[in-house]
């Protein structure tokens, strides 16, 4: 029971913490792509964290803003829509495996909240419900821009869902299973056996379709600000808007997690299988902490010694010192402790936990990489026109997905 609750809430908490980071990443990324500095003013006791505090300020702003109800809106549907969008986005995480299954005395325990027999289909099923949030928002607002946004979103998502599902079938055939756990295990830890290498076309199709499914640029026609004000969430404000806003990022994280799981080996650490990690857990733990200490010292030292030229007359001026000195202290302490203590010998459980944490971190890294790709693409590519979007989906991607499917099927049959 406790384990299940942990498996539900730890990933959920992690995801929820990634969302503000992503918002920050998006703003900073946009800024650097457009050759400007991006957010860098808001601070707490002088700590700005490179603009990360802006996300916090945003949360406060969204909570305290006035909640506006359009008079002509259909109140029930208008109010339900953001909740559907957000909860649907969150449920999907249940079936994503976060690390290799643990071997406990009571049997193996898979590190996913819901060890579901129909894993990937569950994700598609739930994700396909997400469009209702957008459609209901569009219709319930009783605003023509919202309605157009909702209509566009529904047509787009239904069209691209086909490609999304079909591009994965190749992976499913290679793994011989629809469980995400087996798909990850099937890919192994060698990079050249990952599905990215075995299914390059499938990967490209999946990424493009995932962009369309998450309504991100270049497929964000549902909220095309140049044409539709803000599309389906034109009439939303305050926390209801915040829910849509967060749902978009949560969807991005899910899509990234799926890309990583299906094509980049999920939690697999490159060139280091689970057994290898568990056998060398003690060393990894030891050198990992050492490396962390070293890193902490370097970064802390850099921050603490950096001369600041900012003209502000407040705590922000001392940010380098405020962050750097504790980091320095922690780093020195860690290294000192490690040297005096020597390598610890971890038990079976400890070594498994270390391996799991490492795999979890690698998985998170892969997720963040794909999130960055999302942001990168958004600030690089212009938006599609609606007819181009449909032509691409039906006339290019769907046939390609079918070809990929047939070729993979033949290959699986022969090999």
């Amino acid at each position, binding site marked *: 029971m406790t384990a299940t609750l942990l498996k539900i809430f730890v990933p959920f908490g992690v995801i929820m913490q990634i969302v503000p980071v992503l918002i920050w990443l998006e703003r900073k990324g946009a800024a650097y792509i457009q050759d400007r500095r991006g957010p860098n003013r808001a601070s707490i006791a002088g700590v700005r964290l490179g603009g990360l505090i802006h996300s916090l300020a945003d949360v406060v702003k969204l909570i305290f803003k006035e909640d506006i109800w359009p008079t002509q809106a259909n109140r029930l549907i208008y109010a339900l829509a953001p909740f559907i969008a957000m909860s649907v986005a969150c449920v999907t995480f249940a079936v994503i495996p976060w690390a290799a299954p643990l071997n406990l005395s009571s049997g193996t325990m898979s590190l996913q909240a819901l060890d579901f027999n129909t894993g990937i*289909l569950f994700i598609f099923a739930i994700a396909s419900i997400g469009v209702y949030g957008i*459609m209901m928002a569009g219709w319930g607002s009783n605003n023509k821009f919202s309605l157009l946004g909702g*209509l566009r979103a529904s047509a787009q998502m239904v069209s691209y869902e086909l490609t999304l599902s079909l591009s994965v079938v190749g992976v499913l055939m290679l793994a011989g299973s629809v469980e995400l756990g087996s798909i990850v295990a099937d890919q192994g830890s060698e990079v050249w056996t990952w599905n990215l290498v075995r299914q390059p076309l499938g990967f490209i199709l999946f990424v493009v379709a995932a962009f369309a499914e998450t309504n991100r640029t270049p497929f964000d026609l549902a909220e095309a600000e140049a044409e539709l004000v803000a599309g389906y969430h034109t009439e939303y404000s305050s926390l209801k808007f915040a829910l849509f806003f967060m749902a978009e990022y949560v969807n991005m994280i899910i899509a990234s997690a799926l890309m990583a799981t299906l094509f980049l080996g999920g939690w697999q650490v490159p060139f280091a299988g689970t057994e290898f990690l568990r056998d060398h857990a003690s060393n990894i733990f030891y050198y990992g902490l050492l490396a962390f200490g070293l890193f902490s010292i370097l970064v802390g030292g850099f921050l603490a010694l950096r001369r600041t030229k900012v003209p502000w007359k407040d705590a922000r001026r001392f940010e380098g010192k405020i962050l750097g000195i504790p980091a320095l202290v922690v780093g020195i302490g860690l290294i000192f402790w490690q040297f005096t203590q020597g390598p610890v010998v971890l038990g079976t459980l400890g070594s498994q936990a270390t391996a799991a944490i490492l795999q979890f971190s690698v998985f998170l890294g892969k997720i963040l990489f794909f999130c960055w790709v999302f942001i990168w693409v958004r600030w690089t590519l212009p938006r599609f026109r609606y007819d181009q979007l449909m032509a691409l989906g039906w006339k290019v991607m769907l046939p390609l997905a079918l070809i990929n499917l047939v070729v993979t099927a033949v290959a699986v049959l022969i090999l």
Partner: protein
Amino acid sequence: MSGFDILFFVFAGFALVSAMGVVVSPNPVYSALSLVLTLFSVAGLFLLLQAEFLAVVQVLTYAGAILVLFVFIIMLLNLSDFELMEVRMGNLGKALLTLAAVVAFITLAFVVHLTRITGDPAVEGFGDISTLGREIFTHYVIPFEIAGVLLTVSLIGAVMLAKKNLTKE
């Protein structure tokens, strides 16, 4: 009452209430959304029966694709109340039809209640995708293929009906 029973009654209750909603809502959008809820509840019932694949596919195809198109069309047409009024019938007709439906429902419920359902115990691996796939491609291969022909044909027919110009220039 076990947790299973409670879940069963929750899902069954939702299914019934939302199915009623499909019929009685004055607004077609409400009807369509109620239908989504019905399908979800039925998917929940499937889950209770360990038919995971069926549940997921029900949500994926019906709620996630077919009803999205329903809602899409309803929103696209955006029928005004006036246009909806036209198809309504008089109170007497309504009353008679409701009565007929209630009688039919009670009869069917009575009949089903009296029936001794002959069922075999679920086979090994029931609800599993691989078992299902094996069945489809062995015992049920011909219905499966005919269903494929049927869907292709209907697709072509739908495109044909939707096209403006059917005759050659």
